[in-house]
């Protein structure tokens, strides 16, 4: 089978792609359409497929504490991602270039912190944060997310550095470049897809976190996922706001992923061909 026959858009393939897309996108589309309905319309059975869309849920969110929570989520996710990359990328490079006896043991030790479930750390974090006054602060959340993302960055980035031939760096050193210049001007540009993919995963972890935010925040640093739950009131669930909040929570991740999708695909599939 040649390449052109593989690329041919046969009706069977188009149907398969359409059905797959519908299955994949249906939860998102359902959530999105709910966000433009009133609570009454949402609770109607059978649900009306044709309706007059309303922005009242989004307007209500804008005027509620959700907007501050959204900013808190953005801050904690982006700062923790930046910090994890700042420390994790050089650490992964160092680990890649180190050929000492304890290398594998150290690599494994780094990953161990990701093996335990978050609940194992949450209560100690809660008590420690209360003691040092970091409860309900963005700083507290950023530190937690960074500590959990750091091993991920090191483990994801190390194989990327491993694939860069050492001869390239040696050549640059022979030409008079300093070690720092070799790292920033030669090595880093070559692992950009890896950094993008890792950044997305770090951001997703922090952005989607519910558990740490639930335990470690109250009102000042409350994040968007916890704020969405706050629409499940005692007197009833505010379905429209939950749907609007859910749609908004998904937006930054979608935008971020689309912006770096070129790197993301090559970054996440790098291992498939480089073994």
């Amino acid at each position: 089978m040649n390449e052109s026959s593989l690329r041919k858009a046969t009706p069977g393939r188009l149907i398969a792609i359409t059905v797959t897309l519908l299955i994949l996108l249906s939860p998102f589309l359902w959530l999105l359409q709910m966000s433009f309905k009133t609570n009454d319309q949402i609770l109607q059975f059978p649900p009306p497929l044709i309706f007059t869309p309303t922005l009242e849920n989004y307007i209500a969110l804008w005027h509620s504490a959700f907007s501050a929570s959204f900013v808190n989520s953005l801050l904690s996710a982006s700062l923790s991602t930046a910090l994890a990359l700042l420390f994790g990328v050089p650490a992964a490079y160092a680990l890649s270039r180190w050929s000492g006896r304890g290398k594998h043991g150290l690599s494994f030790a780094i990953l161990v912190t990701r093996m335990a479930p978050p609940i194992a750390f949450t209560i100690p974090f809660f008590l420690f944060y209360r003691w040092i006054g970091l409860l309900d602060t963005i700083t507290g959340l950023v530190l937690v997310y960074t500590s959990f993302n750091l091993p991920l960055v090191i483990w994801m980035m190390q194989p990327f550095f491993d694939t860069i031939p050492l001869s390239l760096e040696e050549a640059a050193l022979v030409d008079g470049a300093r070690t720092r210049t070799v790292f920033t001007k030669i090595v880093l540009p070559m692992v950009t897809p890896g950094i993008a993919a890792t950044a997305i995963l770090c951001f997703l972890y922090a952005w989607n976190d519910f558990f740490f935010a639930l335990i470690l925040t109250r009102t000042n640093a409350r994040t968007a996922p916890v704020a969405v739950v706050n629409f499940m009131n005692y007197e009833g669930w505010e379905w429209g706001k939950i749907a609007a909040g859910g749609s908004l929570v998904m937006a930054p991740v979608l935008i971020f992923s689309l912006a770096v999708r070129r790197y993301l695909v090559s970054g996440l599939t790098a291992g498939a061909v480089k073994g």
Partner: protein
Amino acid sequence: MKTASRVSSINRRTLLKASAAGAALAAFPAPLIAQTKPFAGVTLHGASFQHRFFTLLQKYIPEFEEKTGMKVDLQLSSLPVYNQQANLELSSGGSAYDFVNVTFTLATRWIAAGLLANLDEFTGDANLTPAEWNPKDFVDGAQVTYRDPKGGTYGFAWEGGAMLMGLSRMDLMEKKGLKIPKTFDELQHVCAEINGTDGVSGLVSWFLHNWNLPPYIQGFGGNVFRNPPGDPMPALNTPEAIQGVEFYAKLLKSAPTGVLTYTEDQARQAMLTGRANIFIHSSAWVTPILLSEESKVKETSRVVRSPAGPVHDYPASNSQGIGIPKNAKNKKAAWEFIKWALSKEISMRLVKEHGHSSICRRSIITSDDYRKLNTVNGQDLGALYLEVLEMPGKGDNYMAYRTTKEFPIVGDILNKAFEQVATGQLPAKDAMNAAQDQAIAALRRAGTKL
């Protein structure tokens, strides 16, 4: 010259003011002056789950702050988020909150674990609580949850839920010659007769079966536990419990398709639009068929006592309270807030200005103003509410099963067992026998001595 005289006059006036102030200071010692705003500079931290009561109360809080000088920081979250955070804060000995909502289902656990301050110390002190505040004015059935076995009080109720029966289509019932059901058998008959008429379902319910089902189990003489709270041995496979499960499962055959997963909103909506005839739930969910502007069945609706079982007449009820954590930093200030928030004055204002009817003060519920506002189509909703709310306080506290620390585990198992019966997967006897074994095993794993 004009300017000079004005300067001179201001100086003279300033001097006079200063003299007057000096005289006042001499006449009244400094502590007395400070007492006009006794809590000036205090920031009071409180937390609860989001509820209309607190949303309304927030409007009045500036008045309280002005009166006392303290600042109130009230943190409101959804019920699951609040319960999680408050449980962790209190059980780890935290002092972040000065007052908290004592959630009905957690009350017994918190009180038994010594996490709350005994409020009798405040109510018993005439300097802290004036006689007219009258703690005995709170309906006993609502307060019973907030007492320890010795009778000590650890919370005062701000909201009560009393199980009532709403009927949305009395017109249909009258056409068929059906009367309001007063017993389980009559309920079954009416639901079956109405179901399908004019596209109306016989009744509607919602997914929290461990709230809806126990009144039927108790109605037949059973219970969720053998003798709660002292004896938490599950009693899920007694003949009475099996009978209750069978009855409720049969009742739901007259409900809309998918009722097992209905939320409270969906059930209320079905009632408000007249798509279902009967809804048995807390008054706050049932009375909207008469009180809500959205209701399309105001003219044909009735709200009455839920039907009695052959052995017991035990409609469910609950209440939410406010308490003070044992480690709170500002206990006296917190008590000042509780006293104010649950005062007769604020309670009456909530009723008059916002129609908030779930008050737990007897003097308010029985007042003329309350009665006028809550009598619709000749029905005194307040009298019904009060009657049901106070029932667990009279003799047998039949709601004790709900507040034991074992209930969350057993309640989940009961939910699953009931779903197996209602969907026809298992006969009630088999499902409840299995549930009993699972409940005992789960409680033992959790460290409960049975």
